């Protein structure tokens, strides 16, 4: 009796194991609730579009995507990641938007040999000293867009710049990234309080300092507030506003006409002419009814990267083969050219965008030019991989 039970159990286990090799489980940990929940929505929708286009089978393997909300809290994200790794036995974790969440779940993911593919967060620690064969970033290293703008302003010969960013690690890193590339005069550097609502005081300071240009990094609601208040103070034409992570297609409708005439850098825009992107924007709008942001685009790219790597490696069970396939990045990115650097962070272009008012009255970001070609992050040399 016991022998038969044992045999049945072994057979079942073998079958289950075999079946497991034919499917891939992906955990999507992203921010769905709270004031920044819109970003999570874009990330999830972008990824699910990628999976749907592959017929629900990334790399030909039946794909299960398990979505978890991190509430922008590292401890919640950690719990979700542990659950995904231990209970759901995912092979890949993705979806993470914010760096504090990324840093919280990087260790358990890497320790358990689960591939962590970040569609947005690109902390410098993971680009440099703490790089790992299990961590890939498909968007950027956090400093890069700021560096790109710094380089652009340097090239343009802008003499005096005023800087403003939030008073926390990401803000300080951003301005450091900017200053790495920009060598002109910095006539003022202000750090805004977190969750600050009213920037009238900072705007008065900016006006008094008379810079040639203003560089801003203020994300979420802060960016919306600042841009509106800046325009209300009639400074947009006087001191051009350059920014990154501040104005994007999610915040633009909330800012409206106040953003017209401002410049941003981004790794992607909806009007990029490559074939993959035109297909992406069209399918996304058709399926979800709204215009995708760079967050959706980055997440979509992640799904397509996984598709190509899973196909090439025949699954995620052979981790070395899968890691090697991921590194090759044999897929058509919506950004244009895309490849991975030695630290598993992307080498890609950065574009200069401008907000214009269209004939139908809506405001949109249009791509003016390519600001940086095949940009690399500043930390890859510290990575010993």
């Amino acid at each position, binding site marked *: 009796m016991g022998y038969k039970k044992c045999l049945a159990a072994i057979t079942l286990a073998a079958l289950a194991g075999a079946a497991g090799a034919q499917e891939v489980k992906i955990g999507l940990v992203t921010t769905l609730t*709270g004031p920044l929940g819109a970003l999570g929505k874009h990330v999830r929708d972008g990824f699910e579009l990628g999976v749907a286009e592959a017929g629900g089978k990334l790399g030909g393997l039946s794909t299960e995507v398990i979505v978890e909300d991190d509430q922008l809290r590292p401890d919640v994200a950690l719990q979700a990641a542990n659950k995904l790794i231990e209970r759901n036995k995912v092979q890949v974790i993705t979806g993470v938007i914010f760096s504090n969440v990324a840093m919280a779940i990087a260790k358990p993911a890497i320790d358990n040999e689960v591939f962590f593919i970040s569609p947005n967060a690109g902390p410098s620690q993971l680009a440099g000293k703490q790089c790992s064969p299990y961590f890939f970033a498909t968007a950027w290293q956090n400093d890069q867009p700021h560096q790109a703008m710094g380089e652009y302003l340097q090239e343009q010969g802008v003499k005096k710049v005023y800087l403003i960013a939030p*008073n926390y690690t990401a803000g300080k890193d951003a301005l450091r990234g900017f200053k790495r590339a920009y060598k002109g005069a910095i006539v003022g550097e202000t750090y*805004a309080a977190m969750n600050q609502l009213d920037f*009238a*005081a900072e705007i008065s300071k900016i006006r008094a300092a008379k810079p040639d240009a203003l560089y801003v990094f203020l994300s979420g609601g802060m960016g919306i507030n600042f841009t509106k208040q800046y325009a209300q*103070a009639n400074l947009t034409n006087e001191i051009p506003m350059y920014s990154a992570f501040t104005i994007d297609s999610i915040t633009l*409708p909330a800012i409206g006409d106040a953003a017209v005439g401002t410049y941003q850098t981004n790794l992607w825009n909806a009007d990029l002419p490559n074939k993959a992107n035109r297909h992406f924007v069209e399918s996304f709008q058709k399926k979800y009814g709204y215009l995708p942001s760079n967050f959706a685009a980055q997440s979509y790219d992640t799904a397509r990267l996984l598709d190509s790597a899973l196909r090439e490696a025949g699954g995620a069970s052979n981790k070395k083969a899968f890691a090697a396939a991921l590194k090759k990045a044999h897929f058509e990115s919506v950004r244009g050219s895309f490849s991975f650097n030695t630290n598993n962070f992307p080498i890609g272009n950065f574009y200069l965008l401008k907000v214009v008012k269209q004939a139908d009255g809506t405001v949109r970001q249009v791509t003016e030019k390519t600001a940086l070609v095949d940009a690399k992050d500043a930390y890859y040399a510290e990575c010993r991989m």
Partner: protein
Amino acid sequence: MLLFFEQLLNGVQFGMMLFLMAAGLTLVVGIMNLINLAHGALYMVGAFLAVTFSLLTGSYLLAVGLAVACTALIGLAIEFLVLRPLYSRDHLDQVLCTFGLILFLNELTRFIWGATPLRLDIPAWLDYSVSLAGIDYPGYRLIVILASVAVAIGLYFLIGHTRIGMLIRAGASDRKMIIGLGVNIALLYSLIFALGAGLAALAGILAAPIFTVQVGMGDHILILTLVVIVIGGIGSVRGSFAAAIVVGVIDTLGRVMLPSGFGNVIIYLLMAVILFWRPRGLFPSHA
């Protein structure tokens, strides 16, 4: 020097916006002895309703009126359903229940309007610049100051020179006495709460073109408002007026003049100092 005066004006204007929020809340907390954390959520609801009404009717003024009225009605509904049993409970129960209301209202708003931030457009006749000593100051902000002052004057007359105001003041001093004198306290409370909700909505609507209309927008302003009413003295509209200006100015000047990092905490330090010196606030209304 000019910059300093400009910053002073900025501070006063920010303070005026805080006053609109604080006036409603200090009445509710002081007279009804109800700690209403959902005040910030009502601020948010007012702003969202204004956006929707503005899109539906195409008229800014109509949208403002409708949104304020609607929020006041929602306030009445909340008061009737959730808050009535809380009047006799202790502050902890009130904090917990109104905190539960915040969770519910935030998620309901996200459910109805979505997670993406929205925009409230102001009509062209409000969107202008005033030239003050050579700099362009946004005219809309001056309007906000005027509106807040108008509300302050209105409340002054309401509380100081009307019968209802008399009941309000009596209720703030000695609630049991006016119940004993036969005043319909339930009706009075409902009116006060509706007034508070309407003021919160008005604050949200006036702030919307300057700040962002998004889920959770009331949470941060709630903390600032609580700081203002505690500094000003709970139950005193005059106190919240003074405290709002003080908080607005100190916060603004502190952010630009002190080293960065203090900007976040200057208000809390201010509150701690004032409570140390005057534990009941600047203008305590109770004996």
